[in-house]
Each structure stands twice: as C-alpha cells, then as structure tokens.
C-alpha cells in the first residue's frame, strides 16, 4: 500500500489533490456527480467583501490545450457566502476546506478574511493577490513585493489559520514576491494563478473576450508553473501548493517533484467533471509505476 497523505500546515490531507478556486464552485455541483470527500480538500470560489457580477460575456475563450477566462470573480459576497454557500458546502463535504479570498484594497482582504475566520470548516486561507489594487492605479497586488507583503501582513493580523498567498505569474520575478510574502507572515505560497492572454476572432476581427484579455490556464501553462514552483521552492522555507495545467496523476507527481506539497487542479475540472476524482484514483498505480511509496517523500525531489 502506497501512502498518498501529505501534511499541509498541520492538517493531514488524504491525498494532495485539491480542485482549484473558480473551477469547483462551492463543491455542491460536483457532489451531485460523485462523493467529493475523496478530495484532499478543495479551494472554493474567490470570495470578496461585496457581491460581484464580474465582467461582461463572452468571458470564456478556447485555446490550444487551455482556455482563457475573464469571469472577474463573480461571487455573492462574503456575507451571502457564509449564509448560503457554506451550509450547502458543509452538507456535501466533511473535511476542512480552503477559503479563497480576493480584494481590491488591503482593507477589503482583511475584512473578508476576518469575516470568514470564524467559520469552523475553513482549514486554510488562500489569498489571491492577482487582483487589481483600486488605490494603486489598478496594478495587481501580486506584481509588487511590497503590495503583496502588505496584503499578507493585513490578513495575518486577523487570522491564526494557515495563510497561503496565491501568486500571479504575470511578474518579472516571482521569487522576490514569494519571499516578501513569507517574510510578512505567510504560512505558505500557492501558485500559479492564470497567465494574462487573449484570443482574436478572425470572423469579427475583434477579441473573443468582451474584456479583451483574460487569464490563460490549462495544460499549456504547466511548464511555466513547474518552472516557477521550482524556483520558489529554492527560495522559501514555507510549503507550496502548486498548480497550472494539472490534469493527470503524473502531473501531480511532476509538480511535487518541483517542490509542491499539495497540488491544485483547475481547468481540467471544467472539461471533465470527474477529473479530480480520476486523478486521485490513478495516483496509487502511478506511484507504484515510479517506485514511490510515500508521496510526501518526493516533495522537491527534483532539486
């Protein structure tokens, strides 16, 4: 029997497979299809202080081996998430869940984390710093070490739960940003968010996405994600949750070898609703194939 368990900041996951925020809703859509308690955990839809509709449609575009989304953080706002979504989540998932939080000012982030902190089922926070800072000329918090550290520190003040900062890959030096978050009190780094991309429709000769650009994800970005996780692993001591293009058990192992303690599955859930479950089921036999007895032993193995 192989061991797929990993320790993510003191909470033991049955396996390192975590559906990524924005691709798994609040879990219950998938619970109609399979028992989602087979998951390590999952990261719920990016939650903000106020309700958001997001960007105008079309906000999805297909790419070779991936997709672009410009959903723009549609969510009912933290109050409604607590009132309506978390009870529904609890009814179908009995493990600690990861709370994905977004904001447009440092205060927004701290407000939302503080509100959610009292929710028992929340095991970890995953703070998405890819959002534009309304007070910083629209530049994403995730593009400057100072801004990312400021968000980290503000969230650190309002929660004792494990705090992961989710980094944007749209930066020149992701290592500096990861180090700044670690120094500001992050318990871990989650990476990567989507890469800025676009598609143009040859018939209309205009961008496919109403917002023109959006976040590119899926198998096509996996090499970039692996490279970034590998680099950050060398620079920080805190654990990393790795993601970007994961769609098979082999991908999970590759990402762990790069330095990830746990791995998220994003776009793959959208094209195959059973993707995360299938990955979990395949993990033991793929581990055996590569002579891996204990998954936690391979973290950072490629270094």
């Amino acid at each position, binding site marked *: 029997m192989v061991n797929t368990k990993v320790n993510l900041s003191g909470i033991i996951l049955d396996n390192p497979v975590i559906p990524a925020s*924005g691709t798994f809703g609040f879990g219950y859509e998938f619970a109609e*299809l399979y028992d989602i308690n087979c998951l390590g955990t999952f990261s719920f839809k990016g939650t903000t202080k106020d309700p958001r509709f997001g960007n105008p449609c079309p906000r999805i575009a297909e790419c070779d081996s991936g997709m672009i989304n410009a*959903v723009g953080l549609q969510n009912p706002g933290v109050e409604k998430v607590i009132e309506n979504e978390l009870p529904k989540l609890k009814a179908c998932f009995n493990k600690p869940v990861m709370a994905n939080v977004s904001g447009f000012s440092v205060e927004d982030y701290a407000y939302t984390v503080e509100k959610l902190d009292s929710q028992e089922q929340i095991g970890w926070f995953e703070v998405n710093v890819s959002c534009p800072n309304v007070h910083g000329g629209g530049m994403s918090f995730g593009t400057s070490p100072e801004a990312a550290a400021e968000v980290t520190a503000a969230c650190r003040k309002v929660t004792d739960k494990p705090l992961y900062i989710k980094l944007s890959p749209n930066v020149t030096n992701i290592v500096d940003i990861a180090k700044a978050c670690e120094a500001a009190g992050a318990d871990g780094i989650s990476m990567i968010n989507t890469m800025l991309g676009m598609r143009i429709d040859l018939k209309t000769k205009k961008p496919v996405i109403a917002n023109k650009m959006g976040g590119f994800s899926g198998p096509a970005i996996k090499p970039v994600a692996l490279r970034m996780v590998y680099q950050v692993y060398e620079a920080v001591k805190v654990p990393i949750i790795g993601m970007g293009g994961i769609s098979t058990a082999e991908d999970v192992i590759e990402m762990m070898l790069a330095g990830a303690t746990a791995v998220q599955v994003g776009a793959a859930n959208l094209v195959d609703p059973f993707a995360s479950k299938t990955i979990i089921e395949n993990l033991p036999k793929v581990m055996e194939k590569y002579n891996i007895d204990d998954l936690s032993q391979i973290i950072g193995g490629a270094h």
Partner: protein
Amino acid sequence: MTQGFYKILSNIQLTRTVYKMVLGGDTGAITASGQFVNIKLDGKFLRRPISICDYDETTITLVYKVVGVGTEQMSKMTEGQELDVLVGLGNGYSLDKCGDKPLLIGGGVGVPPLYNLCKKLINEGKKVTVVLGFNTKEEIFLEDDFKKLGAEVLVATADGSYGVKGFVTDAMKDVDYTYFFTCGPMPMFKAIEAVASTSGQYSFEERMGCGFGACMGCSCKTKYGNKRICKDGPVLEREEIIW
C-alpha cells in the same frame, strides 16, 4: 447530468452547412425539451454545447451547423465512432403555462431544440404553430419534420425565396397564440420582444467553460438575479430578461 460515451448511429448532411447526428446511449439524464449536451472532441480543449433536438430511451438527435473547427470535425465523423458527452444540461423549456395554442419560433440553428418541444406539446393535445426563419430556401431544414408531427408550419426567408418574405415576425403576424417559445439569434429575439403579445420563453446561447454551472463563465443578469445560461438557463422567461 451524466457523462458517457455515445456511439454515432448516423451523421447526415441536411443542407450545405447543417448536419443531423444521432447518438446511441443512455438518455436517462434528460428531463426536458430544450436541454443540451456538451461534446468533447479530440484535440479540442473545451466541449461543444449542442441542443437536444430529439431523444427517446436510447437515442439523442442533434442538428448542428458547421461554423468553426469543432463543428467541422463533427461533420466528418462517421457511424460507429464514439463521443464523450455530458448529457441533460440546462433547465429546458417548461410547458406549464403555455395555454392551448403555443407558438414556436426558431431562427437558423435555433430551430433544433423546438422539435422535441413541439412533439411534447402535440402529444399533450395542443394546437401548435411553428414559425421558422432562414436566410434563403437552400438553408431550410426540419420543416417537413415539424409538419409530420402535426404542427402548422410557416416559413420566412429573408430573401423571399420560400414562404413569407422577411423575418419570423412577418410570418407570425396573423397567428393566434396563447404563449411562445423561441430559440435563435439575438436580433430575432429583439424583433420578437418588440411584437409578441403574450408571455414566453427564450433560449439563450453563451460561450461556456464547463456547461454544468461550475465556472461562472456564462452568467447573465436577470430581473431575478444573476443566472448561469448553462445551469439556470439556457431558457429564461420573458418576464425576467433584461434586454
């Protein structure tokens, strides 16, 4: 919703660009006319949403137009090949409030989902009128199929090469109806909205990431709050739509 592998029983050309594909497999997840399926195609990342034109216990009929790489690929597939399909997506049309003289209005590739709806309404003993709109005579499909069901069928062509010259709204002028169901392009919807005298239901299209409510890729605003076209739609009631 269920996921399954469906065998292509036939895939025939109806017009220059429109094809009819019959798939064999489990149809237990289909609960209403106007629902759709989401088809995985080799080498394409996202699935392709296509309305269920008709179904029975073991088959699903799709009618689709070749507009891009995915539908082109579908048109080349042959009997015996298998497709990975998500089945029974979306809410579909609700038949509760339609009275005894429902009007079905389809434009172009919006026509297919009305076929099974028409069948159900006729089985319920309704007097159904179907108005179909196409650009030109060569593009007309399913007209005879609706007639065989026992519906009164009126066709409008934009160039006047067949039936009424003009748009569906020209063909429906003298129809006496108690309710309407429609599917088709946005300009047609706006024209219907301007003239329709009863309540009705519109079936919308949007680019989709998942097709089953997980990604928020297809949301729209309605008078009753945000809705996902794939899960809370594709059918919306006239009263809730914000134009």
